[in-house]
């Protein structure tokens, strides 16, 4: 048993699929797709979205919804890990986001544009809203804090950063994942790219017509086995590997050959010391866009074979951007822990152009290793390998 193995000792998640892990699993089990018209901001666009409903009141920070979501997921994960506030502990905090990194408040900007002056409220929220910094300060932690803004792979990349920190000894415990709110500005931006579905998304389906936006947060507590052991914490879930690579191809389109995704997967498997055949399922990025699903599906088939058990959970959460990697890491770990994965919501008809298809039904999982992938704007690709240790 390696003392430097990185254990997953806590998990937290909230999304349209549920405000807790238990609620999420229940949604998965019954195939619930909690999408609807946007209620968080006024819009004339009619694209459905996956909003988080009934966010607990103690997390309702005005104008800082991404931070609210992040803090709710962090608290869940800390509680799951049995970690109360520990001043002075070497805790790294790495969180991915897209929305919280930008001062894109329309009311503030409208006032500035019209009058050359604007109240500083939105600015102050932005300046005090760096997620990693807020979480680190809340924990009174010592150690690195970093907010990753790598578009849709931010959450997976943040987990990869935390893995590097732990392996390099920069901290004993790391809190990592992603958070993003459904925000008016990217809602318009994604619509302008022509990749948003007017109906519910259907990842990997022959007739897929694009993605739905969503929101949420997913967080892991990671720690070296030796540190967990010292505080009497055990977990059989482990983070085994991470890989990231850039296509160096195009700002908004993935490399048609999946160059970067392939490299990321190979790196992650190498770090995990596994072969592709060892992987029991892949939780794919699977947005429901034509390009992403085509490239990702065929790349996964090339590496893992056409019989790979694969799903996309975006049919339950929508595309939560910077949160996606964090949420999907949690869902992947849950798949191993619960020994089943949900049906890939929205998938009906196989696309003959894609060499494999996702699962249509809730599916039992017997293996001990799984992969979660993220593909991002800018040509970024990232993959993590999660494992479940054999019973002693």
């Amino acid at each position, binding site marked *: 048993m390696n003392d430097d193995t990185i254990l997953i000792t806590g998990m937290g998640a909230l999304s349209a699929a549920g405000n807790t892990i238990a609620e999420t699993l229940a949604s998965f089990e019954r195939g619930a797709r909690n999408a609807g018209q946007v209620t968080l901001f006024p819009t004339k666009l009619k694209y459905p979205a996956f909003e988080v409903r009934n966010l607990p009141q103690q997390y309702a920070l005005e104008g800082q919804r991404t931070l609210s979501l992040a803090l709710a997921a962090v608290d869940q994960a800390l509680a799951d890990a049995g970690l109360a506030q520990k001043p002075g502990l070497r805790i790294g905090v790495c969180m991915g986001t897209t929305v919280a990194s930008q001062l894109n408040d329309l009311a503030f900007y409208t006032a500035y544009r019209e009058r050359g002056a604007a109240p500083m409220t939105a600015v102050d929220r932005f300046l005090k809203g760096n997620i990693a910094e807020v979480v680190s300060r809340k924990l009174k932690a010592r150690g690195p804090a970093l907010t*990753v803004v790598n578009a849709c792979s931010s959450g997976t990349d943040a987990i990869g*950063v935390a893995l590097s920190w732990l392996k390099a000894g920069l901290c004993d415990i790391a809190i990592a994942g992603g958070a993003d709110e459904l925000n008016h500005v990217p809602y318009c931006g994604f619509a302008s790219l022509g990749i948003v579905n007017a109906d519910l998304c259907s990842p990997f389906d022959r007739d897929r017509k694009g993605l739905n936006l969503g929101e949420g947060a997913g967080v892991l507590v990671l720690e070296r086995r030796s540190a967990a052991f010292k505080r009497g914490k055990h977990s059989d879930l482990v983070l085994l590997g991470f890989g990231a690579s850039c296509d160096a191809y*195009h700002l908004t389109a993935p490399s048609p050959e999946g160059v970067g995704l392939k490299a990321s997967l190979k790196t992650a498997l190498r770090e995990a010391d596994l072969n592709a055949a060892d992987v029991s399922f892949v939780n794919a990025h699977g947005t429901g866009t034509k390009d992403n699903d085509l490239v990702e599906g065929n790349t996964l088939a090339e590496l893992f074979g056409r019989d790979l058990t694969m799903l996309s959970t975006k049919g339950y959460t929508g595309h939560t951007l910077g949160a996606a990697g964090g949420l999907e890491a949690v869902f992947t770990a849950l798949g191993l822990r619960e020994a089943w994965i949900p049906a890939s919501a929205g998938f009906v008809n196989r696309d003959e152009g894609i060499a494999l298809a996702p699962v249509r039904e809730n599916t039992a999982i017997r293996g001990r290793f799984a992969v979660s992938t993220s593909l991002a704007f800018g040509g970024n690709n990232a993959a993590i390998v999660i494992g479940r240790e054999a019973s002693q």
Partner: protein
Amino acid sequence: MNILGVGTIFQGGVGMRSFEKALEQGWTKPSDMDAKWAAGGKHPVYQVNIDAAPDRAVLKKIRRADRLSKMAVLAAAEAVKDSAVADLQHKSVGIILATAFGAHVTTFGFLDTILDFGEAAVSPTIFSNSVHNAAASYISTALDIKGPTLTVTQFRFSFAAALQLAATWLELSRCDYVLAGAVDQLGDVLEYVASRKLAVAADGKIRPFSFQPTAHVPGEGAAFVLLGNEQTGHAYCTVPSIAVNDDAEQATTPDVIIIDADGMQPDESIYASQVSPASIVTAYSPLFGSMMTGGMFNTAAAALMLKRQQYYAAPVADNPRGLKIMDRSGPASIQAIDCLCCDCSGTKAAIRLAALR
């Protein structure tokens, strides 16, 4: 981890020769920029002239990129060129780009399209360029680098945190080289915000050793370092430690401390309490302006000092606290330099650079 090459772009020009020249010449006056909210309609800024960049081939590759991305790509390309490491595109190279505010000018441009044309008629091109990791993506494409590519933001600690992560990537062999750097740009909205929260230096002079009261002059630019574990003939220095929000374990006091003081905090007195009386103190923000990622330029200056074994006098040396200031330029014997960054909450980061042996 060694610094193998450095690339900069700031008001003084593109590349390390321009940066060295600025360090040698000392303080230069900022330029004036139109500002509808400023008294007299103008305010001082340190502004980059991208049109003067000599590397037109790189600019041609990224002609659709916004100003932020162009600055980032030019600085990154300079760092690669400066390192003289051959065939980098065939090697294992990662990119870590740090930014405090990202593509805010492009983001506000996108908001303009929402306000002017409505939600359904916004510009996809502007939206694409407004995403935080667009600049890193342009670097990757322009330089054909396919390793892990990451964009991070942590306000004042963005650059130090990026460098710290680069060190772990090299230590864990995630890649053989890392191109790490930072970029931030001027823009009227954020300058308005800064003017509401901070004093502007009316005479255009940042006084980094005054500490309180402070005054700032907004700046912009980018700096990148090519990092690797090998020691090349062009290498500048080694980076033995980086501590962010943690205590650095240092066996020795540095010969020189470069502080990030630049008037971006109303009270920068924390720096006075952090510098050792045994070290010579300097700061170069008066050359490139006030910016949360200004530590990238101080690190570039430190690397140059160690490579050249040369002092560069503090460009503005007003010294009311009587610190031991670097008040002359000239040959020196320097073993170690700390680049120190603090924020108003007391969080600090220290990047230790040391001479190669």
